[in-house]
């Protein structure tokens, strides 16, 4: 079965600093989702990447998909306390599936 490994598991940064979270798959990626979760709450959709080399940005968050490396990265520029939370990557379990498998998450803390 496909496994997604996220790194780092947790991250503490000072407000204003940049940071990167990585998500590496054990198998071919058929797209990659990034979500943010506040403690004990639901998932907020951030971005979906479907093609190798694709890069998307929303406000200060940029995500890239490297299909060859079976990897995606999420980069936050000039972090703010509002960026704090758990970031989860998810990927379809197969090319035709919509069911997702998830990484273990990265806990981000932004210190004011």
């Amino acid at each position, binding site marked *: 079965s496909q496994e997604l490994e996220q790194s780092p598991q947790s991250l503490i940064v000072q407000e204003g600093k940049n940071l990167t979270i990585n998500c590496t798959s054990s198998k071919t990626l058929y797209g990659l989702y990034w979500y943010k979760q506040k403690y004990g709450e639901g998932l907020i959709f951030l971005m979906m990447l479907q093609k190798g080399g694709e890069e998307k940005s929303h406000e200060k968050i940029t995500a890239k998909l490297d299909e060859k490396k079976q990897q995606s990265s999420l980069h936050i520029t000039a972090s703010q306390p509002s960026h704090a939370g758990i970031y989860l990557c998810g990927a379809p379990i197969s090319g035709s599936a919509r069911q*997702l498998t998830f990484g273990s998450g990265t806990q981000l803390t932004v210190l004011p």
Partner: protein
Amino acid sequence: SAVISQKPSRDICQRGTSLTIQCQVDSQVTMMFWYRQQPGQSLTLIATANQGSEATYESGFVIDKFPISRPNLTFSTLTVSNMSPEDSSIYLCSASLAVGETQYFGPGTRLLVL
């Protein structure tokens, strides 16, 4: 996009009882899913809720324990039966409009079993 609501948002239940969680989507969707997130863990897919037919369960999950209904294209329920403390988790439903479309999640139901 799709807006998904869940009821209840949280509950505390006694061992041996059952709880039914409702999931409502504000538009018709082709597929709906139920996930579980145990404390400190990531999400695990329980089953795919199929409209008008039996749900498709993932390995380790069975219909007797997690019966699912999906009477139409906007609504689904998940029942957690004969609960034990190990069932304490956040249960989330999700939906996508079509293949390749974004998958949206509900706010989750926090369940604590005593």
